[in-house]
């Protein structure tokens, strides 16, 4: 039996961790965030949104079950926020991750129902914004090649995890019900999540690298930076003027 080192559950806030008013406000913010994403995804994908974002949500859900062995029988797995936005864009990516959280909370009791707004903010929204900005910022600066795309994906994955943990710390500072001082929580959460973030960054980079090799056109984060390929069947040959 393997011990899960980076368990997705550790990031899902349960009921009773953050007080009722804060949780309720988080639901409102998450609803606004999802509305923005729905609008943005519809513009990007049109009526393809539902099947594509749905299948990508399943992909993220499946990736979270894929074990990456670390050492001594422990293993980690992906959280997937950065990967989702790099592959299908910030709006559809955030939407896919939010749906995963919604389904996990509603069906699998994974993450509290009252904390669903908090969880969507931390893992769906914050991760999407930060992951996208980091990836796009780097790509604009360094250009597009497989090592560069992988480096940008690594940093995007790495940064999203501690930032998501910081979002949790902020919520804890506002409405936490625990007695652990905020400074201790900040220190512990950010410290642990930088370590987890390194794993997240590596898996994100390797996965994006694999997609880039086979179908670079499916990496939405670089969709406007790829050389346009035109369909050329053969080079035009000068036809002889008259039959000889």
């Amino acid at each position, binding site marked *: 039996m393997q011990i899960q080192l980076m368990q997705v559950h550790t990031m899902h806030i349960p009921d009773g961790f953050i007080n009722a008013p804060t949780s309720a406000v988080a639901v409102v913010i998450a609803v606004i965030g999802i509305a923005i994403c729905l609008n943005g995804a519809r513009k990007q994908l049109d*009526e393809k949104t*539902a099947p594509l974002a749905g299948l990508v*949500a399943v*992909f993220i859900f499946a990736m979270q079950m894929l*074990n*990456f062995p670390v050492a001594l029988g422990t293993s980690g797995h*992906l959280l997937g926020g950065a990967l989702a936005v790099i592959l299908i864009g910030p709006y559809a990516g955030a939407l*896919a991750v939010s749906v995963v959280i919604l389904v996990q909370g509603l069906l*699998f009791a994974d993450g509290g129902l009252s904390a669903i707004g908090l969880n969507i903010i931390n893992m769906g929204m914050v991760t999407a914004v930060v992951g996208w900005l980091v990836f796009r910022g780097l790509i604009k600066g360094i250009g597009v090649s497989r090592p560069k795309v992988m480096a940008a994906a690594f940093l995007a994955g790495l940064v999203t995890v501690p930032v998501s943990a910081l979002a949790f710390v902020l919520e804890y500072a506002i409405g936490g019900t625990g007695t652990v001082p905020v400074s201790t929580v900040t220190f512990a959460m950010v410290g642990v999540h930088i370590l987890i973030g390194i794993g997240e960054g590596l898996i994100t980079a390797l*996965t994006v690298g694999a997609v880039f090799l086979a179908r670079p056109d499916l990496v939405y984060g670089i969709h406007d930076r790829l050389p346009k390929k035109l369909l050329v069947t053969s080079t035009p040959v000068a036809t002889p003027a008259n039959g000889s």
Partner: protein
Amino acid sequence: MPSPHTHGHDVGERLFVHRHSVIHRLPAEVKTVAMVAFIFTVIMTPPNQFWAFALYALILVGVAVLARIPARVILPRMLVEVPFVLFALLMPFFGTGPTVEVLGLTLSQAGLLAGWGILVKGTLGVVSSILLAATTPARDLLMGLERLKVPELLVQIANFMLRYIHVVSDEMHRMKLARESRGFTATGIRSWPIIAQSGGALFIRSYERGERVHLAMLSRGYTGRLPQLATVTTTAGDWFTAMSLPVVGLLIALTALWIGR
């Protein structure tokens, strides 16, 4: 092949426990609203009002009995809360103010209370969610969300996710078999590129499947909306029955707040 005891074969359907009860018959959206409201009354209760949590637990046991969901269904699913139980157990070691000696350990009283609060509220929340999923088929839950004016597109995405979970996880399993039949064993970080390669392939296959599904739907006349197959009529009586749960919860919470003020 689905076993004769499971209804349907997607993941959500396996969580559903088929019974004929008042709870099962209630429309999904009514149950969802009632459960979420109930959980909110639980989390606003001060942790030092122990009697209130005993009452909440009793109410949930009552719901489980009424819905005839046995403990052997509920208890194993409660394992999802294990990681945060560990966190709650750390609480007593932090916190300021008066301390108590328990088994030679100096524990913060406030920390003990906070840890207990997190533990009991989290547990009640988990049990509530389990009861909701066990008495409502997954598809109905999502259709219920739509009747609650959750954007149709979001519900459609969730529906696609449920419908294809098994297809995609089977695909992942086949890739694992393929890797292992070529002599691959995952040993450590050095094997990550291989596993991630499968992840990349899984993404491409999922994405392309999404494109094919979309084309298949277009050829059947899809314009961005799915037809409603079943019409559910929700009566005032349904709301009255279901909302009795959070109303009682609210009475308990308010009493607890009043006593503990």
